[in-house]
């Protein structure tokens, strides 16, 4: 039982349960399974993005360009769809993944080959990718009436009573779970975050792994680009402006250490859900949506304080063992 309680995810899950309980006292229908499914669906895109960001943060890097990547890729697929409605949606998703991959690979290449700190690289590409969106679109919007019915309807179609968007999120979660727990790449990602120097001696190519990690976050950004645009049915330069910090916030609340090496798929998913529940709950319990920013800010600070205490305690235990030995 004690070992069970050590997992951060359990505490986060408990916090979410308490949160849902509190909301239910004001709005009884909130804990309804149908409503919770809706919340999950609403949070799907953030969950996917948080997972992409997670693998980057685990390697002691950061990707600030994800939201700009989302914006650019979303614009590309929206314009493609507007120009050539005949392209089937699965092919468009492949295009989105590839465009995102290229943008992520640019980040990864600069980090890997030129050794520029990732925060600098992605700070630069953050503005470049969003600017590039303006260049390809000429500042024009792609509106709902220019998109094909398939483009908009694909993620809304229900399969076994659950929208395709939720299925995509579940699939991505499953893939990341396999990646992080069942593959050598996943182990390398953790190893680099815990100790980059030791990883080199263990035969891990740190630079190349970081490149791969940025490719992953790029692909995720691209996928989220299509999902975002088809969900909110408007593509413009302003799409997801500033959202990169929400993604990082979800990771931080999910217990992923910004110093690398600590974090899990479950944590990232729950961190995103936590933010998703708050943004879904505020309107139904009659709190102005203007409160959301301050609430998520407080949640981030609280999460960091709690996580830091947990990490420090771990450190002490190790020292005590060393003393008695």
């Amino acid at each position, binding site marked *: 039982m004690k070992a069970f309680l050590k997992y951060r995810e359990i505490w986060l899950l408990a916090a979410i349960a308490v949160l849902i309980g509190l909301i239910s006292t004001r709005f009884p229908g909130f804990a309804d399974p149908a409503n919770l499914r809706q919340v999950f669906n609403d949070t799907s895109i953030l969950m996917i993005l948080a997972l992409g960001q997670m693998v980057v943060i685990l390697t002691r890097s950061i990707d600030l360009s994800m939201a700009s990547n989302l914006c650019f890729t979303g614009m590309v697929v929206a314009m493609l769809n507007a120009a050539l409605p005949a392209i089937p949606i699965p092919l468009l998703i492949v295009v989105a993944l590839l465009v995102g991959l290229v943008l992520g690979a640019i980040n990864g290449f*600069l980090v890997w080959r030129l050794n520029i700190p990732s925060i600098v690289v992605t700070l630069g590409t953050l503005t470049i990718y969003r600017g590039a969106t303006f260049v390809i679109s000429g500042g024009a919007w792609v509106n709902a009436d220019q998109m094909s019915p398939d483009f908009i309807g694909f993620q809304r179609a229900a399969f076994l009573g659950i929208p395709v968007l939720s299925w995509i999120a579940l699939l991505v979660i499953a893939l990341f779970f396999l990646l992080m727990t069942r593959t050598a790449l996943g182990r390398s990602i953790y190893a680099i975050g815990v100790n980059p120097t030791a990883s080199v001696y263990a035969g891990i190519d740190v630079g190349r792994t970081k490149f791969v990690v940025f490719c992953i976050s790029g692909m995720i950004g691209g996928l989220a680009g299509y999902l975002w645009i088809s969900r909110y049915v408007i593509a413009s330069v302003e799409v997801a402006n500033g959202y990169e910090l929400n993604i990082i916030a979800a990771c931080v609340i999910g217990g992923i250490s910004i110093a690398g090496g600590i974090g899990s798929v479950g944590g990232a998913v729950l961190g995103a859900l936590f933010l998703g529940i708050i943004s879904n709950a505020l309107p139904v319990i009659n709190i102005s949506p*203007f409160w959301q920013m301050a609430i998520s800010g407080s949640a981030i600070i609280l999460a960091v304080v709690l996580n830091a205490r947990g990490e420090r305690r771990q450190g002490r235990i190790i020292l005590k063992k060393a003393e008695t030995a």
Partner: protein
Amino acid sequence: MTDTPAPRHIPDRLDKPLSSAIFSWEALLVVVAIAIFAINSFASPYFLDPWSLSDLTFNFTEKALIAFAMALLIISGEIDLSVAAIIALASTMMGMAVQAGAGTPVLVAIGILVGLGCGAFNGLLVTRLGLPSIVVTIGTMSLFRGIAFIILGDQAYKGYPASFAFFGQGYVWWVVSFELVLFAVAAIIYWFVLHRTSFGRRVFAIGNNSIAAQFSGVRVDRIKFILFCLTGLMSGIASVLITSRLGSTRPSIAQGYELEAITMVVLGGVSILGGAGSILGVVLAAFIMGLVTFGLGLLNVPGIVMSIFIGLLLIIVIALPILWRRLRGGR
């Protein structure tokens, strides 16, 4: 009594050969600045006009004020992403004070004090609780701007007194604006503090090896706390200038300034990993960013496209010396 050898003279700083000055980061920035200046002069007939050049300075003075303090913070190995949110909160508080009938001196005091308070809050979280500053300030960034949104919603504060407009719109002499004078004074103060005082030396020491600095008797946490307060203070001052220049407050004021200030610092040659950098570099980077955005503005290039140039400039200027070293090193 035995003869003790006379204490050997150890120079305070090593003599640098001229070649190192020529190949320094600052020299590269000067070349880039001159090149952009020349291109601008050719590209637009309106560029080489005293009033145009004066307008140009408004593009960077406010951000540069923050960038000076941010440079010290980044050199010490920390970062503050909440500066733009501090501007928004300080501006909102000033707006509230205006509704209550406060005069200009009170407004300025409120702006600066709110900034200082926010900076101290960041500093406490980072130094007292030992939290990573990048995460803390992502949190406080949402918190500070969130409070501004709670107070203002989709409203705006207006009706600032006429005398308040001087800070962001006034001129001290001919084309020299108040903001430009403040920028110059701040540059000199920060240059002196960082490069000519023991405090500055300690900032570098912390950035290079905070543990070694601690064992050398440097009060690491106290200095970091002071640096966070300074960054908050400068954000408060910037808030006064921006609010005065715009004459109104919305919660979305100064959105994205944090990234531009950090870009300025990094472009100025401050290592994002801490421990290295100079104020001269930041000053030059401020001019370069101002020149690029203003020059492109004269050519009717939209702001969002300008940001591509800033982003490219950031990556290219950082990548160039690395590539150059690699080519010379034959690898």
